[in-house]
């Protein structure tokens, strides 16, 4: 029995032992990025680890803050990202990018992309909770940002983005309703993380879809080859798909993977806060586990994981718990009645290939 998701619950569900932590090696590092006027407090991280981090070795402070940390109250999002990245990827050097926009006219996400293009040595895994509706961004901007993500992939950086918290989303256009994909979740050069809940919220049970889990098909980027087989299989074998006019079946489909996104405990401004939910929670958890895999790869003389998707899709779900029950939310209209896509065995646009089973995932990702 448990009273919400804590690092101990995550470590139990994803089969991490107390020994599955980083070695503290300077070669391995991870980062999370903040683009809102949000800051984390060291004191909150310390209290969080005191409350929830007793069962595994961990670090109590971030190694580096890039950008400005404000002096105001801690933000829930910032606190969550740091606390769960550092407890899943425990004992691994962690950076925080804080890009609230130094100047009133700057775009914080763009500032982060500039930082990536200006630093030769960067953490290997980056988790980002930012996302915008694709239709709120110009085509020129979408393609250029996609090129920036491709640059990061070429350098062997693993970029994980939250899939969003509105399920398939909904856009009311002149021709009626459409699903509303989120970007950069829909970029073919990032790994996108969806969300799950425990079947029984008070026990470490199997996972089902968290109805908010973002997912769907890009209206801008075509389906990359690496996911062709998985997506074709999903579309060809699903018996209850939404009407095809709601989504672009030939677009880049997401998410790629998932993790728990429901019922987290977070310490913010010295107060432990329960039942925090969103794919902003699942993303640092998955990122932390990939950092642990990187640790073992580096120890074995292997290169870091880099852009994961081509490898992930070729694994066909190996190393992951398949989530096969539940649907996410979408437009509230007569046609779809609030329901988007539903999960099923194998890849699906709600939870991707599923959630991590760490020992099996490590085995699948250790060689070559």
């Amino acid at each position, binding site marked *: *029995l448990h009273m919400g998701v804590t690092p101990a619950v995550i470590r139990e569900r994803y089969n991490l032992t107390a020994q599955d932590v980083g070695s503290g090696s300077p070669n391995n590092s991870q980062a999370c990025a903040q*683009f*809102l*006027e*949000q800051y984390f407090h060291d004191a909150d991280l310390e209290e969080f680890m005191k409350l929830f981090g007793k069962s595994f070795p961990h670090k109590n402070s971030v190694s580096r803050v890039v950008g400005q940390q404000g002096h105001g109250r801690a*933000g*829930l*999002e910032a606190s*969550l990202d740091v606390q769960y990245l550092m407890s899943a990827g425990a004992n691994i050097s962690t950076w925080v990018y804080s890009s*609230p926009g*130094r*100047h*009133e*006219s*700057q*775009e914080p*996400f*763009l500032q982060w*992309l*500039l930082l990536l*293009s*200006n630093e*030769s040595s960067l953490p290997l895994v980056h988790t980002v909770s930012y996302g*915008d509706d694709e239709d*709120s961004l*110009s*085509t*020129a*901007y979408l393609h*250029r940002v996609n090129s920036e993500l*491709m*640059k990061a*992939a*070429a*350098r062997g950086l693993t970029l994980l983005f939250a899939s969003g*918290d*509105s399920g398939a989303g909904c856009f009311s256009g002149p021709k009626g309703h459409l699903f509303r994909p989120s970007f950069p979740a829909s970029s073919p*050069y990032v790994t996108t993380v969806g969300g799950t809940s425990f079947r*029984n*919220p*008070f026990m470490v049970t199997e996972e089902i879809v968290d109805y908010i889990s973002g997912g769907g098909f890009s209206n801008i980027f075509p389906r990359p080859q690496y996911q062709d087989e998985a997506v074709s299989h999903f579309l060809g074998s699903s018996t209850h798909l939404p009407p095809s006019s709601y989504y672009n079946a030939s677009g880049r489909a997401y998410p790629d993977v998932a993790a728990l996104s*429901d*019922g987290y405990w977070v310490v913010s401004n010295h107060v432990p*806060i*329960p*039942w*925090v*939910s*969103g794919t*902003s*929670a699942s993303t640092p958890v998955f990122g932390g586990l990939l950092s642990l895999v990187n640790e073992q790869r580096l120890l074995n003389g*292997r*290169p*870091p994981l*880099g*852009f994961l*998707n*081509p*490898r992930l899709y*070729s694994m066909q779900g190996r190393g992951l718990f398949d989530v096969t029950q539940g649907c996410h939310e979408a437009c509230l209209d007569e046609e779809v009645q609030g329901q988007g896509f539903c999960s099923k065995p194998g890849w699906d646009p709600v939870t991707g290939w599923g959630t991590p089973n760490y020992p099996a995932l490590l085995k699948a990702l250790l060689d070559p």
Partner: protein
Amino acid sequence: GLGPEPDQPFLPPPGWVSIGRVGPTESLSLTFALRQQNLQQLQKLVQDVSDPGSPRYGKYLSLEDVAALVRPSTLTLSTVQKWLLAAGVQDCQTVITEDFLTCQMTVQQAEQLLPGAEFHRYVGRLGGGRVVRSPRPYSLPGALAAHVDFVGGLHRFPRASSLQQRPGPKLDLEESLS
């Protein structure tokens, strides 16, 4: 002139309110995304270094390698530089890959450089901070169309977090224990 982002929504999203136009002498920071080269080659390299079946798997590029590949052409760099200098904009910084240029300038200079732009200050209703953005689309001289992908700092507003605290599930201990 040409608008590089004709499909960019330029009105503020809900929750943001204009508190008026920004004075012409106030300072702005705009980011110019310069046109990159060899993107198809970069795409092929990404496929190779990320595919465990490829002999290039894991042989990642350094930032300097990436820069050598995508760095804008000399023509792009000089055309943009001349255009900025002609408008009196000199305080610019680039990045290692040279494909972004961030420049400080006055509002007046920015509005002259980017015809159509009109800078307003906005406040976020729910503690979203203050930003300067243009509620009107901007354009670029025709000669710049082949050299600039977009200009950052005009339209896109910061997005609020969608993280939420849900009501806790009803505790049914009896059912859980059974």
